[in-house]
C-alpha cells in the first residue's frame, strides 16, 4: 500500500471546484493544508444544510463534505506579512491549488512564475469558471452561470421551457474533478522530471469537452443537434438519497462511511471516487477553522507562540 502522503498540497481556493480537487487528493493521502481567510474562513462554511437547521461555521454539510482529510490554517495572503509566510510554506510544497480571479495572485507577487522560482517543480492548478485569459476571464460567476456558459444547460430541460440547471453544483464539481485528474498527472510527471507546471483549467472548457455528439456534429457538419429534448420517455426519478444509503450494491461495497466531527457529530459520507486496490481511501473529518495553526506555524515554520499572538493581533492569521 502507498498513498500520496509525500505530496504536500496548499489549497488557497474558495468554492466547490478547488475544494473538490483537494478533497480527492487528501482522500488518497496527500497532505493538504487549506488556507482560510482570517475571520469567517472559507465562505463555503456559510452554506447549509446544518444539523437542526442551525447555521454554524463548523457544521455546514457542503464544507464538511468537501474538506474531508485536510488541515486548516488561517492566513491573510493579501497582507504583506501573510504573503511572506505563504512563500515560506511554498518552499515545502509540491502542489498549489487556487481559484482567485485571474492575475490577483500575480499582482500580490505570488503568481506561478514567482512561486516556481522558490520551488521549480511546483505544480500550480488554477481552477476558475473561465480560465486565466480571454475576454470572459474576469467574469463573475456562480455554478449557475458557469453551467450556462459551458454549453450543458442549453441541452438540459424541456424544449418549450427555459433551460434547466441540474441538481447541486455540477459545473463546479466537474471542473474540480478535472482539476484533480490534471493535477495528479502533472504531479506524477513533476515527481520524475522535476519540471513543474501551471495548469490553467477553465470550467467552461472542461464542460465543452463533454458535449458530444453536439460539438462534433456542429464542428464537422455544421449541424446543430443540440436542442433540448426533455425526457424522451417519462424519466424514472431514480434513487433518492435515502435509496442510495440503502442500495444493496453500495452497501455490499462499503461505499458510505461514517465520519465523526467534534462539532457536527457522526454523519454519513460518500467514499472513494474509484478504488485503486493498492491505495486506500482515507475517511478523515474536515478541519475546524485554523485547527492546525500551531502545528504548521510553530511546528513547521518554527514561529514562537508569542509570534503567533502578534500575527493574530495583526489579523494575519
Amino acid at each position, binding site marked *: 500500500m502507498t498513498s500520496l502522503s509525500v505530496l504536500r498540497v496548499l489549497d488557497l481556493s474558495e468554492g466547490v471546484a478547488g475544494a473538490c480537487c483537494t478533497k480527492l487528493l487528501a482522500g488518497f493521502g496527500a497532505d493538504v493544508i487549506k488556507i482560510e481567510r482570517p475571520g469567517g474562513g472559507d465562505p463555503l462554511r456559510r452554506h*447549509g444544510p446544518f444539523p437542526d437547521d442551525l447555521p454554524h461555521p463548523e457544521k455546514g454539510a457542503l464544507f464538511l463534505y468537501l474538506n474531508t482529510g485536510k488541515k486548516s490554517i488561517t492566513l491573510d495572503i493579501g497582507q504583506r506579512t501573510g504573503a511572506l509566510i505563504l512563500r515560506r510554506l511554498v518552499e515545502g510544497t509540491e502542489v498549489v491549488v487556487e481559484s482567485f480571479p485571474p492575475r490577483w495572485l500575480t499582482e500580490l507577487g505570488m503568481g506561478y512564475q514567482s512561486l516556481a522560482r522558490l520551488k521549480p517543480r511546483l505544480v500550480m492548478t488554477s481552477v476558475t469558471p473561465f480560465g486565466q485569459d480571454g475576454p470572459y476571464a474576469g467574469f463573475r460567476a456562480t455554478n449557475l452561470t458557469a453551467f450556462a456558459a459551458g454549453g*450543458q444547460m442549453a441541452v438540459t430541460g424541456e424544449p418549450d421551457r427555459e433551460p434547466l*440547471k441540474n441538481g447541486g453544483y455540477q459545473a463546479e464539481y466537474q471542473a474540480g474533478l478535472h482539476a484533480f485528474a490534471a493535477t495528479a*498527472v502533472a504531479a506524477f510527471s513533476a515527481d520524475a522530471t522535476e519540471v513543474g507546471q501551471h495548469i490553467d483549467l477553465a470550467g467552461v472548457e472542461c464542460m465543452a469537452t463533454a458535449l458530444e455528439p453536439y460539438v462534433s456534429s456542429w464542428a464537422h457538419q455544421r449541424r446543430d443537434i443540440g436542442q433540448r429534448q426533455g425526457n424522451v420517455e417519462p424519466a424514472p426519478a431514480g434513487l433518492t438519497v435515502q435509496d442510495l444509503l440503502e442500495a444493496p450494491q453500495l452497501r455490499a461495497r462499503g461505499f458510505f462511511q461514517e465520519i465523526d466531527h467534534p462539532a457536527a457529530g457522526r454523519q454519513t459520507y*460518500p467514499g472513494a471516487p*474509484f478504488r485503486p486496490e493498492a491505495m486506500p481511501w482515507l475517511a478523515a473529518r474536515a478541519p475546524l477553522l485554523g485547527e492546525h495553526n500551531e502545528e504548521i506555524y510553530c511546528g513547521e515554520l518554527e514561529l514562537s507562540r508569542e509570534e503567533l499572538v502578534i500575527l493574530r493581533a495583526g489579523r494575519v492569521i
Partner: protein
Amino acid sequence: MERLPLYGYRILDLTTAGAGPYATRLLADMGAEVIKVEAPNNGGPLRSDTFNHVNRNKYACTMDLGQPRGREPFLRLVTLSDVVIEDYRSQVLEDLSLSYDVLRSAKADIILVSLSSHGRRGPEKDLMADGPDIEALAGLTAISAYLVGGPQKTGVAYGDAVAGIAAAGAVALALWHRRRAGEGQHVDVAGWETMVGLIGEYVVGYSMNGRLPQPLGNRHSSMAPHGCYACVGDDQWVTVAVEDDEQFAALCRAMGRPELAADTRFADVVSRYRNQEDLDGIVGEWTRRFTPQAVTEALQAAGVPAAPVLGVTALFAGPHLRARGFWESVSHPDAGTWDMDGVPWRLSRSPAHIRLPAPRFGEHNDYVLRGLLGLSEGEVQELVAGGIIG
C-alpha cells in the same frame, strides 16, 4: 518546450464508447501513447463525428482477443505497455483468459483499470447502466427538476464524462504508486460511486436531518434572484445570480430601477428570497428587451454574475473560447478538415495540442505488429490469414 507529462507511457485501450474513450482521450492529450485495440473484420465502430473527436491523439490496431492466437500478440503488447483500460462486463476478461493475474504474469507491474457502472464486486456487479441511467442511480436526477414538473436528466452523457475523468485520475495515481512501490494494481472505477461523490453534500445533509432534498429548478438554496431569463430572439436565455446586497443594488441600477434596492420586498437577502417570484418577473421583463450578450455585458460591468446560456453554435461563435485558442483545426484523411474542441488541461511548460487525427480502422497495425512486436512478414500474414487481425 518540455515533453508532455505522459510522454513515453503506453496505454492499451479496449473500450469502445462512453466513459472509456473519454478517459483515454484525456490521457492521450497529455502525451500518453494510447493504442485502441479493436476487434477485426467488422470495420470497428462507426468512424462517426463523435468517434473522431473523442479518439484524436490515439493509435488503433486490430486483434481478435477471442482467439488464443490473438491473445498471444496482445499479451506481448502488454509486456511493452504501462496500462490496460477496459469496460467489459465483469466476467469478460476472465472468459478471454485475460484476467488481471494473466496480464500480470505477462508484465509484473501492469496497471489494469476496469470501468463499469456498478463496479467489479458486489451483488449487482453484472448490471450495466449508461451515462443518463447513472445520473438516476446516483440521485442526481431526483434533484434535477423544474419547480413544477418531473425530474430531468442532464442533456449530456454526464455519467460517462464523470467516470472518464475519474479513470484518468486513477491512471495517474496508479503510475505514482508504481514508481513508489514498484508494482501495478487493478483499479475498480464504478461510475455510480463516482457520481454519488458529486452530490455528497446531499448525503451528509440527509444524514444530519433525515430530510430528502427537494428540486429547486434554477433557484438556489439562499441566493435570489437566481435564474434563467428569456431574452430577445428564439430560444435565447441568460442566467443571473445575485450573491449579496451590493450585487442586488448593482442589478437594480443596471435595470434602470435603482429604487428597487430599497423596496421592502427586496431590501435584504431574506426578503428577496421570500419574494423571488416577483423578482424573477421583474428581471425577466428587463432581460426580454435585450440579447443574452447585452445583458451579460451590462451585468458583468456592474459586478453581477451573469452569463448567456450558450448552445453549441454560440459556444463555437463566441469570442471567449476562440480567443483562448480552444478550437483546433484537425485534418483527417477521410473526414476532411474542421475545428475540434482542444485540450482542456492547459499546461504552461508543455502546452498540449491535437497531434493526430482519430485513427482509421487498423491504421497502426504495422506500427504495432512490426514496429513494436517485431513480427516478421510471414508471422503477420499468418495472423491476417487466421482472421486475428485485418
